[in-house]
């Protein structure tokens, strides 16, 4: 809370001007240091925060952070207790991106992710997975039949009107729950082209008959919004230097 000297009689007493100014300069230098290490030009402008339900769900699914009820995250380090320093040999990133829909696209099965290589030109994607939540509807099923469906995730190469690829997975559902779909190649394509958007189209064959509903983007159900988890590492995949 910076209080101007006019209203705070004692503020000016403790610190002569130059040491206060030095503190302010030092603080600015530390801010610039943090932003430069995160490859950011300036801090992001958070106008509308991510729904906490979506954030807490996603963070809970990842090993990287234990989430407390208030949404604060404890990042476990190597010897277990929650702090935020753990030795790593190379710069690794984990990006969680929440699905968004495009008003222009009428199709309810279309969604997209706004992802970028975080300013790190040579970020190599080691793994990327799409997380989709499936709900079982209370419909009568034939005796002995099981809820097996085929989920087809189409992803488009970067650029308007470019090619679509397919990731297909047969899933048997016994209860409501999350399922993952590998999209490493798709995200590597986006990073490789320096793009910032990944278009997807999610289809489910057999869902209607089996009484299964994939949760897509719905403001009424933020906790089950699809999200993409990207694990990336700085540095070129080909020339990996190992320290012995």
């Amino acid at each position, binding site marked *: *809370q910076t209080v101007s000297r006019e209203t705070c009689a004692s503020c000016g007493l403790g610190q002569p001007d130059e040491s206060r100014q030095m503190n302010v300069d*030092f*603080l600015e230098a*530390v*801010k610039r*240091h*943090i932003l430069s*290490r*995160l490859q*950011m030009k300036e*801090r*992001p*402008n*958070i106008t*509308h*925060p*991510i729904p906490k339900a979506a*954030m807490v769900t*996603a*963070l809970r699914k*990842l090993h*990287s*952070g234990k989430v407390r009820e208030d*949404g*604060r*995250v*404890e*990042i476990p*380090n190597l010897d277990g207790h929650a*702090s*935020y*320093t*753990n*030795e*790593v*040999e*190379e*710069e*690794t*990133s*984990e*990006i*969680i*991106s*929440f699905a968004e829909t495009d008003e222009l696209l009428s199709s309810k099965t279309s969604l997209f992710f*706004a*992802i*970028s290589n*975080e300013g790190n030109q040579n970020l190599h994607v080691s793994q990327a997975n799409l997380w989709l939540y499936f709900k079982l509807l209370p419909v009568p099923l034939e005796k002995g039949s099981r809820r097996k469906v085929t989920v087809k995730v189409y992803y488009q190469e970067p650029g308007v009107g470019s090619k679509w690829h397919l990731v297909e997975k047969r899933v048997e559902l016994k209860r409501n729950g999350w399922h993952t779909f590998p999209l490493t190649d798709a995200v590597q394509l986006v990073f490789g082209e320096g793009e*910032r958007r990944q278009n997807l189209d999610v289809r489910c064959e057999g869902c209607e008959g089996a009484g299964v509903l994939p949760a897509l983007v719905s403001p009424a159900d933020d906790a089950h919004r699809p999200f993409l988890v990207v694990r990336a590492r700085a540095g070129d995949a080909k020339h990996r230097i190992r320290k012995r």
Partner: protein
Amino acid sequence: GLECDGSSGGLCCRQQFYIDFRLIGWNDWIIAPSGYYGNYCEGNCPAYMAGVPGSASSFHTAVVNQYRMRGMSPGSVNSCCIPTKLSTMSMLYFDDEYNIVKRDVPNMIVEECGCA
């Protein structure tokens, strides 16, 4: 390494400097941790520091110090007070696309200082 706790007599030491992200208004985009140890090194590296165990910042400096202690000073270059041990900082934050990013940033926190 020495801590700058008033008893290091102006010698090369580590000054702790904690920044609470709430106080600088960054807690809206940085989810964890709640602050950053922006520690730094300050202080002098006089010639007699050469013999102080643990004050050398590297093997190379330790060897040069041995020469200096035997009066064979290789070059009259003074050594300076720099970080000798750095640790990683893991951060969880929102980027400008509202994605949540967890980043392990190596060499982010100064743990020790020494003369080089």
